Every structure is written in C-alpha cells, then in structure tokens.
C-alpha cells in the first residue's frame, strides 16, 4: 500500500558533539509533538544483585534533577499540555513525551536536565521501591501468565543476561543502594548512549537550535562495556513446571531465534505471522478452531540486540488439558518445519505486514516508535522505509529454513502452569488482623 508522496523524505538527523543523535520528522496534521528518547540500556546490562535496576531508572528519571525537584517533571509537563510515559525492555529504556507544540522548549529543558543532572534523593528512592514492588506484585506475582513467562526465560537462558526479569528479582528490588544507582546512571544515561526522536508539528531548524542550547553542552561519558556473553547452543529440551493457583492451565513454548538486526529477521517475522496472526493463522485454526485444545494462542518474537526467544503462549482449554494442547502444538510446529508454507500463505503474511506497517505510521506517536526502533536496533532509521521491499523479497524456502532452524526439539523450552488450589481456604477462617 503506497502512501501518498515519499514517506520520510522530510526527515533530518544530526549527531551533536557529545555523541547525541537527534532525528526530526516534521508532521503538521495536529498541533502536537511526540518525543521519544531511546537509551541503549535494559535488563541485558544487569548482573545478580542489581537486577531490575534499569527498570528502576525508568521510574527514577521522574524523581528530580538539578533544576526540577522531585515531582516537577510531571507537574510541569502536564501543566503545559503534555503527558509522558516510559518503558524498559531487555535491551533499551525508552522515555516518551506527548505534548502541545507550545510546550516544546520546556520539555527539552527538562529532558536535558535529567540527562545532565539527575538527583538521587533518598526519600524518593525508598518511596519508589514501594511503587516498583507494587508493580511487580501486579504485573508478575498476581498474574499466572507473567509468572510462568519469567520462569521460562530463566530456564531458556543459562548464560546470557536475557535470563534476568526486566522488573528484577524481589530481593534485589529491596536492596539496591544509592551508590549502585549513581554508578549505573553515569555509565548508561549519557548523551552518547541515547537517540532522541521528535515527530510532529516542528521544524528541524527549531529542534536543532534547542538541542544546541540545552542538550549539546551535556558531556559524553566513556562508552559502556559491551555485553560479552553469548548464549551457548541449547542441546536438549528443557521443561519447567509451575504449580500455583490459576483459573486455567497455561502452556508456553520458547525457542531461541535471531536478533533484530539478523539476516533472517524478516523470514522469522513472517513465520511468526503465519503461525499466529489472525483467525486464519496456522495455530489458531489448528488449536482453537479444529482441535479445540486452546482458548487462545499467541506469540511474541523478541527482537533485541542479541538472539532472543520466539515464545508461543497457549491458554489451555480446561476440559482438554495441557497434554493435548502440547501435542497439538508440537505437531503443528513440526509440520511447518517439514512441509514449509504455501505461496498463498506467504503472500497473505506479507500483506498483513504491509498493512500493519502503514497502520503503525498513522500517528506521530507510531512514527516516533517505528523510527527509533530501526535506528537503535538496525543502526539506521532509513531502513524503516526499505522494510516493505525486504519483506517482499522473502521466499517460502527462507521461511521453511527459519522454521527448521527454530522448531528443533533441542532448541525448545516447555513451560507448564498447573493450577492448584490456594494453600489455605479463607472463608470462615479466623480473622488474621493483618501482618505487622
């Protein structure tokens, strides 16, 4: 689906003296701006003792800097007609601001101040520990699916830090020290480890003038040490069973796959699409529609700096049980590796990608995310605009080769969650009166 005109022709990028790269995509549809700041740091850069610290920084970057005391970043942003958020993955931490164009300079000043001069107020640190613990309880401990996924990751990787949960292990969350935070900040939250993207009702000249004034004076830091560990090839199936209360059984099957920038990335993406996108996909038709062993099936293809996982999630139909779901899934994955895909299936997957690609670029927010992702993981934002061509060239043979490589039994980690009753039925129990 061609977009009218030449998409992206108006983008201008510039790298400043301190190593910060700023990319501007003017788009004047609405009087607003999306600003994405990508830092090349995530749980992949952590080690035992400080797990979850990248995610903790996601929070701490809102808790005060030299010119803006704790709470001011959000207060000033909202009062100026903006909102913000942030997210952390295994590979990156991304800070996102959306605001009325009139707020541009104050937002740039605040971003600059927290890169330059973050403060580490002990009261804020302690309060934020409670927030992150609450987040962990909600996102992981009180969610069977996420709890199982954490265990599957920790099993599928034995050496590489992708085994570390992004939110961190509870004991680490409780014990980081301010010195850990300070040293981590100096290493990773430096202008030369970041890329900023401005998309919206702005001009490159306007942005570069602001960047020269507020961002360029921030000094570069020594380049962070690379992650050296390479996950050794898996040599046999791994299985992990979690028993805990859950309304239904869950099955997750993980396979090591390639990195975001790998030569097989497009073929792997199309393979995943063929397996799980839409009600005409292979796994939906087989497991939900035909065999009725699953209530739902989905997948996640981790796309980071290093080889990650292709993870298939199955909400098991309680009447049929996990064994039936597993056998159906194993059979279907073996079939795609053995027989490959049809031309019609491949063409369908390419069309779905193509449409999703343009859909992602409908908003200034989507544009900033897509552009940043290509710049950070593929090394050049321009590769975003050649993506349709690359996907178009993928052959059925390449998809089958990807399936053969990935869906090898030796490369498989199976995670099962078996529901069990809560340890203690509380109805009618004695009043607990609350712990401590």
């Amino acid at each position, binding site marked *: 689906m061609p977009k009218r005109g030449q998409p992206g022709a108006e983008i201008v990028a510039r790298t400043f003296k301190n190593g910060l790269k700023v990319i501007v995509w003017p788009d004047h549809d609405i009087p607003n701006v999306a600003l994405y700041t990508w830092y090349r740091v995530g749980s992949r850069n952590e080690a035992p003792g400080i797990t979850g610290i990248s*995610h903790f920084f996601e929070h701490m970057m809102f808790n005060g800097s030299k010119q803006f005391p704790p709470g001011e970043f959000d207060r000033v942003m909202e*009062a100026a007609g*903006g*909102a913000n958020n942030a997210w952390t993955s295994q590979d990156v931490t991304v800070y996102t601001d959306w605001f009325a164009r009139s707020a541009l300079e104050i937002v740039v000043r605040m971003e600059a101040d927290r890169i330059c001069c973050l403060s580490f107020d002990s009261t804020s640190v*302690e309060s934020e520990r409670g927030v992150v613990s609450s987040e962990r309880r909600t996102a992981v401990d009180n969610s069977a699916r996420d709890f199982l996924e954490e265990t599957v990751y920790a099993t599928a990787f034995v050496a590489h830090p992708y085994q570390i949960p992004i939110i961190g292990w509870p004991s680490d969350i409780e014990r980081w020290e301010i010195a850990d935070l300070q040293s981590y900040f100096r290493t990773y939250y430096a202008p030369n480890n970041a890329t900023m993207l401005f998309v919206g009702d702005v001009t490159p000249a306007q942005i570069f003038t602001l960047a020269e004034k507020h961002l360029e004076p921030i000094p570069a830091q020594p380049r962070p040490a690379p992650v050296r560990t390479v996950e050794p090839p898996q040599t046999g199936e791994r299985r992990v069973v979690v028993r805990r209360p859950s309304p239904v059984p869950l099955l997750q099957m993980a396979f090591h796959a390639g990195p975001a920038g790998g030569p097989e990335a497009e073929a792997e993406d199309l393979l995943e699409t063929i397996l799980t996108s839409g009600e005409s996909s292979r796994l939906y038709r087989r497991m939900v529609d035909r065999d*009725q062993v699953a209530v739902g099936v989905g997948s996640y293809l981790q796309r980071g700096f290093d080889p990650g996982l292709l993870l298939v999630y199955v909400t098991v139909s309680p009447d049929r049980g996990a064994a039936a779901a597993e056998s159906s899934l194993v059979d279907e994955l073996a079939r795609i590796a053995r027989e490959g895909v049809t031309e019609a299936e491949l063409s369908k997957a390419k069309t779905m990608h*193509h449409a999703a690609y343009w859909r992602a670029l409908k908003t200034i927010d989507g544009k900033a995310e897509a552009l940043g992702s290509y710049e950070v993981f593929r090394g050049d934002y321009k590769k975003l605009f050649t993506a349709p061509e690359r996907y178009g060239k993928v052959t059925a043979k390449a998809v089958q080769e990807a399936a053969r490589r990935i869906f090898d039994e030796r490369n498989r980690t199976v995670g099962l969650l078996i529901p069990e009753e809560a340890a203690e039925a509380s109805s009618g*129990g004695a009043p607990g009166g609350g712990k401590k």
Partner: protein
Amino acid sequence: MKRLALLLAITLSVPVAASRAADIQLPPTRTVTLPNGARLILAEKREVPLISFSAYLQGGALTDPEGKEGLAALTAEMLRKGAGKRSAQQIAYELDTSGAVLGMGAGVEVTWISGEFLARDEGLMVDLLRNMLRNPTFPDSEFVKLKQQSIDALKSEKDDPNNLLTEYGTAFAMAGHPYANPVEGDEKTLERITREDVLAAYRAHYGGDRLILSIVGDFEPKRMEGVLRRAFGDWARAPGTRPVAPAPARARGKRVLLVDKPDATQTYFWIGNLGISRKDPDRDAVDIANTALGGRYTSFLNTALRIQSGLTYGARSRTLRLIEPGPVAITSYTKTESTQRAIDLAVETLERFRKTGLDSLTMTSVQNYLSGLHPTNYETSDQIASILAGLAHIGLPVTEITEYTGRLLALDSAKVHTVLRRVYPAREDLAFVLIGNASEIRPVAKRYGEVIEIRFDQPLIDTVSRAAKTR
C-alpha cells in the same frame, strides 16, 4: 513494564506555560438518514489509502434477557462466524489476505462492528459488513465452539483481579439496574445460552432503524453514499422494542462487598457511587474535576497513594457515562498488609477534594492538560469514525468535540467545585468492593460498612446480585 500514565503537587510556583491549543478541525461530515431510519455519517480523509468504519446497533447488552446476560456479546461475535455464502474460515481468510482489521462486540447500550480496510478493498468491506449484519448464518458448530471459548476466557480472566474489578464494582453499586450486568455475562449465564437464543436476539434487535454507520477515509463521499444506500436502505426495521434503561438512583449509606481470592497477595479496591450521564450539562466541569482527582499522573489520588507514599503502582478515578448516569469510582491496589492505609488515604483524598475543590494553579494546569492533548484523540480515521458514531448514538453534535477547548477554558474553579460536590459521593454514601485474601482483610473491610462476602471463583452476576438482594 510501563510506568503507569495516569497525578499533583500544587504548592510549587513554576510558571504554567501557555499551551492553549486552538480548537481542532474534523473533516467535513455528511449525515444521511435513510427511510428505514438507518443513519450514515460520511467523512472524506485522504492522507493514507485507508477506510475506517464504525457501525453501531443501538440496544447492546440492554437487550439481554435476565439470566442470559452475555447474549448480545455472543451474538455480535457470531457475526464473523458465517455470513451470506461465507464460512467463518472464509471470512477470516479474506480479512487476513487483504490486511484488514475487523472487531466486534457488545457494549452496554450498543453492539458494534468496526474495521479498517485498504481503499482498494472497499467492495469487499461493504459486502462483508452487509452480509454480517443482514445475513449471518450462526452455524451450530461455530456456536458450540465460541460459547465454550467464551466461558473459558471468562475463567482465565480471573487470573488477574484488575481485569474484573470495574465489573464487580459496577455490579455491586448499581445492583438491580440493567447497567449492573457485565456485557460479557458470567460463566453460568453463558452456559444457559442456546443457539436459538442467539437467533431470537438477532431477529428482534438487528434492523435498519437501529443502525448508525460512520465511515471515514479515502473515498468519494457521493459515490460511497450510493453504495451504502444500496447495501442498507432496504433493511427492515428491528421488530423488538429498543430497550431503554431507567434512570438509576444514587444509593445511600456505606456498604462493602468483600470478594475472597485466597491466593491474592494484594487487595484490589473500587470505591464509588452513581455519577453522571454522557449528556449531563456539567460534563466538561466533570472532565476537569476527574482529571484533577484521578485522571492523570499528578492527580490528587496518584500523588497521595503512589508518589508520596509508594503504597501502589497506580490510583485513579473514572466516570462511566452512558445515556443514563453510570458509576463514578476510585480504583487502586496495594499489598495485603497496607489495605487499610491505602483505602483510608483514598477516602480522605476524596473528602478533601469535595471540601476544598481545585486551587487556581491546578485548575489552569488541568485546562492546559486536557486542551493540549485533545487533538491526539482525533488524529486518525478510525478514531474519528468511532467518535462520530458515538456522538450520533448519544445525540450530541460534532461541536461537542470541535468546541471542547473553548468550553473548558470558559470554566472557573468555583463552578467546578459546585459540580464536583454534586457528582462525587460523600464518605457516608460509598460502596466499597475489595478483592483480596479475605482471611487477612476481613477486619479491615468491616471498618467501612456492612460487609457481604462472596468468592472470586464463583460466577459474578448470580453471586453479586444475590448478595446485594440479601442486604
């Protein structure tokens, strides 16, 4: 792992930036009412070769018979499981091969279908929509599968109380009113629904007079109007009476529903009462009040419960606005041990808000916040299609959106204070729902009013309404 985007320290005197965005422009729209009562809303928007549509059928879950709640939702989902000469598999295949997206479901007052297609697939889109609405086949085998999947999906949602907290709150606070029923039903009500029920619901409540269809994107409006007239102009009216919810009454007094989930390590809570309708003349003032109380990151609630005390990852307030008033509620969660502290803090924050209202700095901040971000809600064709259908359903003009900023800026904090005292309940008139480990939090629950206790693994409708009736 998102940092929750939701809250406000107001004492510091950083100057507020002047960010008053101009009112937004929507593409010109043309509304046509066909002789059978169907309404078409067309807007041309040509930046990208996509067409988005939003079809509303008025009725929704209000048409569900007692004991068969979830019927309208199941009927809607069956539309893609066979229509005209197409099987479920053919529909899925045609959608996927064209790269289109299509969704459907029931809301409280409307059944909806929305989609986005490439402009080149306009023919396919209209043909599919026409057949799904006018010639669904409701194959028995698909019905059996979908019903079981829906029951299993409801069970699996109980993995995370966040998924259902609002449903429990609404069911308890509005018990006895049709808005109390969750649109998806529960495990037991779905079990009772037969294919014949689906056919009967379709025959009674689908028809031209119930249809509002908005379509936005890359097409020639005159020609598209002709295409849609041919597709829907001769669709007979729905024979059933279109249900209308009675005006609900605000309950007095304090009452507590304790929902036992023995394995929970934290308590999820909902605190509220009846709020306002979508057409309430003070709705813009309530937007300001709710944003200040719990609708953004620096809101009073998030500041108290998250930013200053670290008790939770997020605290917020929301209003559900339908033709009649729905609930206004505070929601949050905290570890089991801090349940009382967090709930006390939430109630105190609400009380202080009712007493003191908004200072002028907060007032200006909220006005800037809402007006600055307003355009981002109307950036794409699918956003616009959805809002146009929604406004037509409620009976509000497009100026509701295009003149919003001007109306917000004309309000003052005294007016907002008067409105919020009317809309937000006093501490003597609160319904509390607590989902958590009852053996630990039962004594805490008792502090807030008379307690009714049920189990989280039981079906929602029967247990909540039975419990509410025993009061």
